[in-house]
């Protein structure tokens, strides 16, 4: 056992930190919240040049082929800074193609993703707000060489700028996991209408209406009716990576809050000298510490092909709550300034809330944990 970062991981972390400090300062983050695209295409291209979009793509498809653990450490660093746009979405959903895609799908899409020419997103949630398979009602009906999709998806990350969507659809009557199929859908297909929904983190989550959208049968991702298994892979890997981003975010909040408490003077002393505040910051620090190794364990297991559905769900459930709690304390400990639009504390506070539903909410993951610890 050795729980230190490898040299490669230290390098990855530093390069992510340096790049984002330069390319994505907080003023730019706030600008992008009002930008119709919600991300910066020029920065996206630079990320592709650095290999960021191909970290998890095998070298034979023009990727970097890094380990899952290395990717996790990189994403944690990205989360420290905040990077608006569909980066995590593209990286996580790429795994679905790598793991379940046909040769043709891989050859077609993976090099494009790696080179920064394909934004990928997941169309999963519907208006019923459910995370389990019974929430999937969007219909896909076989017709000739196509499937025809009808229905509505909500909270789809960056659908308005995406090139491809992985659409979770129902191909068989019923409400179970059997009968769910994933489709790789060209986001520019006729019959698709997207509209950005106003959300807490201004992070371009869209409503996507599918009206008689024809998708070629060769675009089925994985097996017909057996898509839930592929979605579970996305949920597992996505939970770990989204939690890594959150861990980065909450780390910044702790650092930022402690720094401010040393600087801000009231009653002739830094407010960090007051125990009422010290103990809250100690709690923030402990919550950060307990989140960290829970996540690293899951990342290490995933990286070494050790089954870790339970550990991934534990990480997501725990870190969802950790981030929200820490981010709220971050606002409170800054006092009035922490509530203002132009301060950084709300940026993290908003993202903590947005992060908690991505790849499954706390309650959804606790239920998965409940099943795996033997509750009948």
């Amino acid at each position, binding site marked *: 056992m050795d729980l230190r970062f490898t040299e490669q991981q230290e390098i990855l972390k530093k390069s992510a930190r340096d790049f984002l400090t330069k390319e994505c300062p907080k003023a730019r983050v706030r600008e992008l919240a009002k930008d119709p695209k919600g991300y910066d295409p020029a920065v996206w291209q630079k990320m592709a040049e650095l290999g960021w979009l191909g970290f998890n793509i095998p070298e034979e498809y023009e990727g970097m082929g890094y380990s899952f653990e290395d990717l996790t450490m990189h994403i944690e660093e990205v989360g420290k800074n905040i990077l608006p746009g569909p980066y995590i979405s593209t990286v996580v959903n790429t795994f679905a193609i790598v793991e379940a895609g046909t040769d043709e799908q891989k050859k077609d899409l993976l090099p494009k993703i790696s080179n920064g020419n394909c934004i990928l997103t997941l169309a999963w949630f519907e208006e019923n707000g459910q995370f389990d398979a019974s929430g999937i009602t969007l219909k896909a009906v076989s017709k000739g060489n196509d499937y025809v999709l009808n229905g509505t998806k909500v909270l789809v990350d960056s659908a308005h700028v995406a090139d491809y969507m992985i659409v979770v659809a129902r191909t068989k009557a019923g409400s179970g996991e059997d009968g769910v199929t994933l489709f790789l859908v060209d986001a520019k297909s006729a019959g698709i209408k997207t509209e950005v929904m106003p959300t807490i983190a201004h992070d371009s989550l869209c409503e996507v209406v599918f009206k008689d959208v024809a998708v070629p049968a060769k675009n089925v991702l994985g097996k017909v009716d057996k898509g839930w298994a592929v979605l579970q892979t996305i949920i597992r890997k996505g939970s770990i990576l989204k939690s890594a981003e959150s861990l980065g975010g909450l780390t910044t909040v702790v650092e930022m809050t402690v720094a401010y408490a040393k600087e801000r003077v009231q009653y002739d002393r830094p407010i960090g000298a007051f125990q009422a505040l010290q103990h809250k910051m100690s709690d923030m620090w402990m919550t950060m510490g*307990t989140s960290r190794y*829970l996540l690293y364990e899951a990342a290490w297991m995933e990286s070494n092909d050790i089954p870790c559905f339970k550990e991934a769900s534990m990480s997501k459930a725990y870190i969802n709550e950790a981030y929200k709690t820490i981010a709220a304390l971050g606002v409170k400990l800054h006092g009035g300034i922490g509530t203002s639009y132009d301060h950084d504390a709300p940026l993290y506070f908003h993202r903590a809330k947005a992060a908690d539903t991505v790849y499954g909410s706390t309650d959804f993951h606790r239920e998965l944990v409940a099943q795996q610890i033997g509750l009948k």
Partner: protein
Amino acid sequence: MDFRLTDKQIEHRKECYKVCAELEKKKPKNWVGFESQFDNDEGWAFHRYCAKEFAKRGWLSLGWPKEYGGTGDMMEKVLFAEARGYYDLAGSDIFGVSMLAPTLLAAGSEELKKEFLPKIASAELMFCELWSEPNSGSDLAGLQASAVRKGDEFIVNGQKTWNTGAHRADWAFGVYKSDPNAKKHHNLTFILCDMKTPGITVKGIPYMSGTHVYNEVYLDDVHMPAKYIVGQENEGWAVVNVLAGFERSNLDMVYGLVRGLEDLVHFCNENNRGGQPLSKDPMVRNKVADLACQLEAVRTLAYRVADQQNRNEMGLMDAAAVKVFASELMEKYAHVACDIMGPYGQVKHSKFAKMNGAPEYTYQGCFVPIVSMGTNEIQRNIIAWYGLGLPRMK
């Protein structure tokens, strides 16, 4: 990063679970948990029996450097603690094995190491701690018990309190004011003494559960040889801090919760409420799963701390964090489990109890780790000052 256990560690863990499973069958009937080793004679006898069984396998010196009979691997100590906790056994003296031994290794003279380490490893000597006083709890450095140097010994007078197991222990490690004129934190000396030394009177204080765990200890002209000083004379505070780090990073108690959680899951599966098993209730599932997440967090934290200890990198704030998180998780577990058990949450270990009465036991037992070793509020100060660099309270 590598969480993998070596083949040797995996083999060791297997052996620990096997031996502990056998010992569990020999528990006295009135064994309720940690406190039982101090509360009654059967408990103490069982504790000493387990200790001998562990000693003969070399398990009380796990994590010590090789030259003192250990394997040098902290992880083996953690795995042993997991197994012991899982079967709710005693047998590893919290004061001698978990606190004093690593302190001697870090700060003791060669003579002290040679005299005491073998006796700790062989379970020959059991220790207690003489630190707190009626007027010095959290502000330990302000203590008053005096140690006056006379030639090659100290004459010690004063009163100590909350001394867990003092009525059972063979030896004690204590801290006394040895220089009334020196500055705070540079006026204390850390001394070991035989509990049979004339002038020592031990008087029990019942814990809230009614058990006899801790005591008051009166010291009247107790002669303590100066050769039993740990560290430097008048610099005992530094030794207190070293020991406190080991004391707080000790996760033994929380490993019992792994079993506690399994038992709770079983209870929920087997007991009905409102015409269906408790395990079907979404609220119950949510709460129990939340506990499981937190337990896994503390388990990985323990690995992290063992990894740091192996490299001598553990800081004061890391030990403090372990102590706070683990003890408060015990409290949460007890509250959730007692709530789920409904009216049975209050029934004590007896033929009437469900889950062996363990949740009720933990419901009030959790205050021991929460309040001792420096209250959790003191730990939060330590994290704030040493971990976060916030201004220290004057």
